[in-house]
């Protein structure tokens, strides 16, 4: 009897090579190698599971964090400080948070960031020589996380985008398959449990490090019936220099904004972002960081070198010279919507399928709004840890009951649109055509930032038509197995369906709350203080989450 025991004989899963590519069996498969995926892999390995991590790009450089710098929602475990940290976010969230989760995330983040310090992460120190653990330098953080993942004997598959999940007869997830794009072959992983850590969806709008984030995991999970939550909170826009990818809105708190006519009154990186967006619809807007006091400019520079990198290279002094700005859609990367989680260990509504980081809904700690990276970073760390641990436990119980995942029955591929057309192939329909059409519906501020019933329903009509055509007729040609063209097709339909979910629940929420702004319903409606669910592919459905938020407002009532 091959009774491998979790916890003592774990080795790096070995790849089996055949004419198609590689295959491997493992307890836990993590899809996505950003911070959430890395923490999930580390946590699953800690729990004694064998782990494979597959990333579309390269674990260590991929995703929104590696090329950026992030604050971390790190608060010392003192009751008053914690209470302040929680209170300060409740109103911003639109009262949709769950205080129990906020406490859990603060605890877990404190613990894991301490672990990072133990691993030697070079935190800065204050004047008393104490480490300041409230921010992480993206490249340094993710380079170190890759090392920890490798040290945990996780098998890392780089440049290995997942194309679809695999399921057994009961509908439980049993692994995934994809391509190895640098080798031109395929991979298949049989797994006892799967963690989706593929990030949010930024619709390839050109934000720093975000073009790889196309919502692939949401699509794959939905094909197994997973549900989503908070998808109306998906219209975060960041300010960036028009020529550059660097989206660091935080610095613009020191900016004055201008048009060709002079100062743009009321514009600001915080409350006045809509004014900038409206102005940009018709003419250029410029910024200059002239409100930064002279004595902090050096500190600003060393706080995030990559903010200044494009300016230095373009020979612009942002403190003294005006530069044209734009707003880049960050979708659900900064928006809070994502896969609905139904348990403390971040399980989705599909057995064996877990979600972590931006791919999972962040409403529990952010409600309908987040600003910079700090809550998002804390969520990636803690949800990743829980999802990895939960997946390891699930795989363990399944292994005991089945002697290994899926050994008894063939695995069924679950992918639909973009990989298996269900009607006649429409050769003129390509990934590029779909991507461009989706971008036209979601990127313009007058559609997505300033929402209305009319705009949303018009967009939805076009997006639903496009979905029907894609589902029926989009299928890149290939000989024996999928190629990069299949990946592009899957990315395009992932973005397409992301947009449909966003706008379907956006119509349902007839009020303005968090980042969701309705120009036809500009006020917050106390009767709509609930979370909203969405799901489905051919037919998109919406519903109110029966579970109420758990905020101070609830508790007082």
């Amino acid at each position, binding site marked *: 009897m091959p009774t491998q025991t979790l916890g003592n004989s774990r080795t790096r899963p070995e790849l089996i090579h055949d004419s198609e590519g590689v295959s491997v069996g493992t307890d836990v498969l993590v899809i996505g190698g950003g911070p959430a995926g890395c923490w999930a892999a580390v946590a699953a390995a800690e729990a004694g599971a064998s782990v494979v991590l597959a990333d579309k*790009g*390269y674990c*260590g*450089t*991929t995703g929104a964090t*590696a*090329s950026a*710098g992030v*604050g971390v929602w790190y608060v010392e475990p003192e009751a008053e400080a914690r209470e302040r940290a929680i209170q*300060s976010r409740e109103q*911003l969230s639109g009262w949709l948070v769950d205080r129990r989760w906020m406490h859990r995330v603060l605890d877990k983040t404190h613990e894991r960031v301490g672990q990072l310090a133990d691993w030697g*992460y*070079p*935190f*800065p120190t204050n004047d008393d020589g104490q480490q*300041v653990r*409230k*921010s*992480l330098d993206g*490249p*340094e*953080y993710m380079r170190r996380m890759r090392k920890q993942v490798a040290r945990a004997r996780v098998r890392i598959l*780089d440049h290995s985008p997942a194309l679809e999940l695999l399921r057994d007869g009961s509908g439980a997830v049993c692994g995934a398959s994809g391509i190895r*794009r*640098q080798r031109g072959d395929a991979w298949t992983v049989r797994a006892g449990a799967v963690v989706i850590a593929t990030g949010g969806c930024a619709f390839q709008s050109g934000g*720093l*490090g*975000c*073009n*790889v984030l196309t919502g692939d995991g949401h699509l794959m999970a939905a094909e197994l019936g997973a549900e989503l939550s908070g998808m109306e909170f998906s219209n975060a826009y960041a300010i960036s220099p028009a*020529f*550059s*990818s660097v989206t660091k809105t*935080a610095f613009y*708190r*020191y900016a004055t904004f201008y048009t060709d006519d002079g100062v743009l009154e009321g514009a*600001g*990186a*915080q*409350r*006045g*972002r*809509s004014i900038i967006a409206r102005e940009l619809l018709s003419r250029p807007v410029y910024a200059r960081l002239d*409100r930064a006091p002279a004595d902090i400019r050096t500190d*600003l520079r*060393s*706080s*995030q*070198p*990559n903010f200044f*990198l*494009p*300016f*230095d*290279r*373009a020979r612009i002094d942002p403190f003294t010279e005006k530069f044209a700005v734009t707003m880049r859609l960050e979708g659900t990367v900064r928006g809070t919507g994502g896969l609905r989680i139904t348990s403390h260990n971040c399980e989705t509504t599909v057995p064996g399928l877990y979600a972590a980081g931006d791919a999972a809904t962040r409403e529990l700690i952010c409600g309908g*709004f987040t*600003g910079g990276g700090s809550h998002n970073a804390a969520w990636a760390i803690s949800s990743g840890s829980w999802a990895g641990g939960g997946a390891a436990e699930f795989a363990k119980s399944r292994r005991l009951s089945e002697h290994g995942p899926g050994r008894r029955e063939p695995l069924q591929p679950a992918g639909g649109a973009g990989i298996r057309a269900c009607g006649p192939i429409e050769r003129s329909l390509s990934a590029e055509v779909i991507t461009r059409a989706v971008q036209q519906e979601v990127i313009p501020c007058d559609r997505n930032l300033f929402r209305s019933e009319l705009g949303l329903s018009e967009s939805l009509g076009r997006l639903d038509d496009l979905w029907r055509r894609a589902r029926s007729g989009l299928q890149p040609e290939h000989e024996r197995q999928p190629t990069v063209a299949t990946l592009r097709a899957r990315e395009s339909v992932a973005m397409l369906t992301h947009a449909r979910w966003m706008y379907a629940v956006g119509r349902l929420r007839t009020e303005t709350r968090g*980042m969701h*702004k309705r120009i036809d319903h500009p006020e917050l409606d106390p009767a709509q203080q609930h979370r909203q669910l969405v799901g489905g592919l051919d037919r998109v459905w919406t519903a109110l989450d029966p579970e109420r938020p758990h905020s101070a407002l609830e508790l007082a009532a």
Partner: protein
Amino acid sequence: MIELVSEDRCIKCDVCIRVCPTNVFEHGTDRLPVIKRQADCQTCFMCEAWCPTDALFVSPETGPVAQDSPYRDEAWLIERGLLGSYRRELGWSEQQPLAGARRSTQHLMNREPLPIGGAIMGGPE
């Protein structure tokens, strides 16, 4: 976008080919990396950060620059100290061995409230 691979500096270690999250590079003649899919470059500067010999240059522009742009002129970039400048900031260069993370002052960004706009960065409108 990535604009330059310095043949002089490149040691053919393949790091850029491995780490680019959008798979922009490919082996060219003599195993030298070439910019094969520039349109896929997302201007994330990761290849430049990971290159051990400061052989790469990512222009700050999100689109390709003109053929005669200084961003493609290795001598100009070296003269201005731009080749390898990001790696020095990160502390990943021998010339700047103190980790950039150690020198980070990002936490100071969260300090004083500003005259307008509220204390919390990027609050809802």
